[in-house]
């Protein structure tokens, strides 16, 4: 059985968590950051949707449904947040003043601060998972 990561000592199936277990000095502060973001002013369900969208765009497995920014059942706030998250992962230079205005029509500055930090962390951890994972071409992972 081949391990899920190419990094020696990362043996389990949860690549990022198992990799960070090699570095508890970083794992603890990262967990604190993630918890603080989750306990902030943005509803966790919306943060989860941003995470799913970012992971999907980076080709990393997603548990549950993948949000569709064009879905009719989204309200204006949800849509503005998800549009920002999707553009954040694709190319932040594509986030223009109209997009920021649409977000700030429905979010406070504290919510904006939380959202962009959440997107940064989701983007970072999805890339980390992708790059540390052993590719399928290596065989049985």
């Amino acid at each position: 059985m081949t391990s899920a990561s190419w990094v020696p000592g990362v043996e389990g199936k949860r690549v990022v968590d198992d990799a960070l277990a090699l570095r508890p000095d970083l794992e603890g502060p990262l967990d604190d950051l993630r918890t603080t973001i989750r306990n902030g002013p943005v509803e966790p369900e919306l943060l989860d949707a941003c995470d799913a969208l970012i992971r999907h765009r980076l080709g990393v497995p997603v548990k549950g449904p993948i949000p569709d920014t064009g879905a009719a059942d989204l309200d204006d706030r949800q849509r503005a947040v998800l549009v920002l998250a999707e553009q954040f992962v694709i190319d932040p230079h594509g986030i223009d003043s109209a997009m920021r205005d649409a977000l700030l029509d429905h979010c406070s500055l504290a919510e904006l601060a939380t959202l962009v930090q959440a997107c940064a962390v989701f983007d970072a951890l999805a890339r980390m998972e992708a790059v540390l994972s052993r590719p399928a071409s290596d065989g049985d992972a």
Partner: protein
Amino acid sequence: MARHRIPPDVLDQNPDAAAAFWRLYGILWSHGTVDQPTKEVARLRNARTTGCNYCKAVRFEGAREAGLTENRVDLIDDDYRSSALAERDKVVIAYVDTMLHDPHALTPAQREALLSELDAGQVVELTLGIGLFHGFSKIAVALGPPPDMPTMVVPTPDWPPR
């Protein structure tokens, strides 16, 4: 013309998250096991690729004191492979490029090269670092790109702050 103004210190609007980030970042930079010049090479490669003017202008003091001169920084460009940069720097730059452009495309040769330069824990530290450099430089771009800035040497992030 934007209808809403975003203050430059907007991340402080969630002070708990900002403090948690600076704690993580300070520990990574000043208490990690990867040397500071290696992390600075990765950070600057990301800054130039992501197009964050603030990140491109900043130089962390610790890396400079440890020998990362401006001449060496100048070599972190498109022609880095044929430059006089050390092999370690070239391996790190290639890793940053892979993480940013297609993180599924790391080659066996790249893995081998990384593991010849870094132990497993250091690979994890560098990888987390690149992810954070990228994610947080994207914030600076997303909130409204800052103008070009002159090069400035700033204290290396530390925790507790110096």
